[in-house]
């Protein structure tokens, strides 16, 4: 039985359809991320699960029970907001205890549960403070403690990390995952940050314009994007117009002007069934730059010129021209980064390429 299941959910606001017919099953205990740019419907979906919005059509079930008509305060869900939403007039301990007041929990029991929740988020001594006296990271931990102390059936996180600064965000990411694994609560996480999604999720649901683009494990979504949108949204990808010249059992043959002939494994191109135009996807991280003219050990090589360099310390992003193609590559820097104008040789491997059906502009 899935912890949360959405069946043909539609959400319309007037003439605007925020979520198109969407079905989804979230396994008990899993960490599922709704990933997409702003306006893709991910937060709307989360708010429908929470009960803050009613779906226009379709059915929402939590633990197998239909909850469309169950008001939010009876759904037993933990909800964490981007802006923390702590009650400013209550102490940290009273904030965490808030949900326990509406459950049959004795005073002593409640105190123990609050202490345990504060321990879990590693802020055991802050119970007497007011939210305003805490840093953003601390406030978000308290918000998390407040949501999990009620032992919710599902924990819903609405961009909980995006208000924090970069370093803190990475710490909280690890922390959040640790806590989720410790208590094993089914978690639905909403974010527009692909790094967070890849790092934390058991399953990623990539959304765009109110539709699900792809559902899969992080590696699957990353390596075998189901659409151009997914390829571009998760990391930097090079998308090249190509021609599939043959499909065999194990691989497909793909030709791109200026490239050597490619033989892409079938599992990297599950949607290609026959010869014809395709889109070739190569991740920026999978293109390796070598000095021009260096020997080709194994794999394929394409000549290119560095047009621009975005130096990032341990790595660099290169903007390249290879024949008619504009491309990007992200490489670790071993010694010095390549310079603008330098001629390089791009190395790639067949299994690092993926192919999508060529779609007319929609």
């Amino acid at each position, binding site marked *: 039985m899935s912890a949360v299941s959405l069946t043909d959910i539609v959400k319309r606001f007037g003439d605007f359809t925020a979520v198109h017919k969407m079905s989804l099953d979230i396994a008990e205990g899993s960490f599922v991320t709704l990933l997409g740019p702003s306006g893709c419907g991910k937060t709307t979906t989360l708010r429908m699960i929470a009960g803050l919005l009613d779906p226009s059509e379709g059915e929402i079930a939590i633990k197998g029970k239909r909850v469309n008509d169950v008001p939010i305060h009876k759904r037993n869900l933990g909800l964490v907001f981007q802006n923390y939403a702590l009650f*400013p*007039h209550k102490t940290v301990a009273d904030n965490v205890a808030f949900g326990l*007041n*509406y459950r049959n929990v004795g005073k002593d029991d409640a105190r123990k549960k609050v202490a345990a929740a504060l321990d879990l988020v590693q802020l055991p001594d802050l119970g007497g403070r007011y939210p*305003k006296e805490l840093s953003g990271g601390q406030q978000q931990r308290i918000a998390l403690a407040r*949501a999990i102390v009620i032992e919710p059936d599902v924990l819903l996180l609405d961009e909980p990390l995006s208000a924090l600064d970069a370093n803190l965000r990475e710490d909280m990411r690890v922390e959040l995952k640790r806590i989720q694994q410790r208590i094993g609560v089914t978690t639905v996480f909403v974010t527009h940050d692909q790094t967070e999604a890849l790092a934390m999720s058991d399953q990623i649901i990539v959304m765009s314009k109110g539709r699900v683009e792809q559902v899969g494990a992080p590696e699957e979504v990353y390596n075998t994007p189901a659409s151009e949108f997914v390829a571009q949204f998760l990391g930097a990808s090079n998308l090249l117009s190509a021609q599939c010249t043959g499909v065999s059992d194990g691989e497909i043959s793909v030709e791109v002007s200026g490239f050597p002939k490619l033989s892409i494994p079938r599992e990297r191109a599950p949607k290609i069934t026959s010869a014809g135009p395709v889109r070739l996807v190569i991740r920026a991280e999978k293109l390796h730059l070598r000095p021009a003219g260096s020997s080709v050990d194994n794999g394929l090589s394409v000549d290119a010129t560095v047009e621009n360099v975005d130096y990032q310390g341990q790595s660099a992003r290169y903007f390249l021209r290879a024949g008619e193609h504009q491309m990007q590559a992200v490489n670790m820097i071993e010694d010095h980064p390549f310079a603008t104008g330098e001629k390089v040789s791009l190395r790639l491997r067949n299994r690092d390429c993926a192919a999508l059906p060529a779609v007319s502009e929609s």
Partner: protein
Amino acid sequence: MSIEAREARQPWILLAPALTAIGLLLIVPLMFIIVYSFWLRSAAGADTPGFFFDNWIAALTDRFYRDILLNTLKIAAVTTVACAVLGYPAAYFIARSQGNKLILLVLLMLPFWISYIIRTMSWINILGVSGALNSALIWVGIINEPIQMLYNETTVILGLVHFLLPFMVLNIFVSLDGIDTNLEDAASSLGATRWQGFLQVTLPLSLPGLAAGGLLCFVLAAGTYITPVILGGPRDAMFANLVYEAIIRQLNWPLGSALSLLLLIVLGVLVLIYNRYLGMAQLAKGLG
């Protein structure tokens, strides 16, 4: 001049016009009133400058003044509570309405475009013997003869509520509008019904606005003078009417000064008490 000195002077330069106006129009006249209150009005009609306590003793010991003062405070209190009860739901509705918030606020301010006196007098057309309500009741057949509904304490309070309600609504609105709507959602997600969430979260967070609106309504109501003149009967005089009576009718400036200072002191003490107990230091801490 050094930059520091110039920066230190800047706030004072910006404050100067306001401080001058307050000094000339408020502080100086107040000083005159304080001095007057210790003068004496002789039977002959001329004021005797000096330092006499007669006016103060009269103001503080005369039962007539005391009863009117207490009644004035009672009317102000009833008005304030009525404004709070009527104003809170309206303010909540405006704060939570999407899109047309601005229109609703403009509608709220609309009465200010009409003179307060005209607005007060409009009640005569509604409640008067040949007013709208009496005409309607006679037309429906509930009564045969018009009823005298005007010129009592209730109509005074009605007029004051009519006058002061927008102030209350605005103050509550401002504090409600500043409350993150996620807080109510968070409370519901934790198991509170909407009403429980309101009592636990929204109401306490809006108390500063409610208290500010309450103080404003109370002080304005307690100092009112026109409403009882227009809508009150002969026995519904409020304290400001006594001051008017003393100064304009009897030309007894010293007594009028003492009486007006007495009202000022009573209201000042109430403001201090408000500040001490409802100063919201605790809440303000969380709101900052």
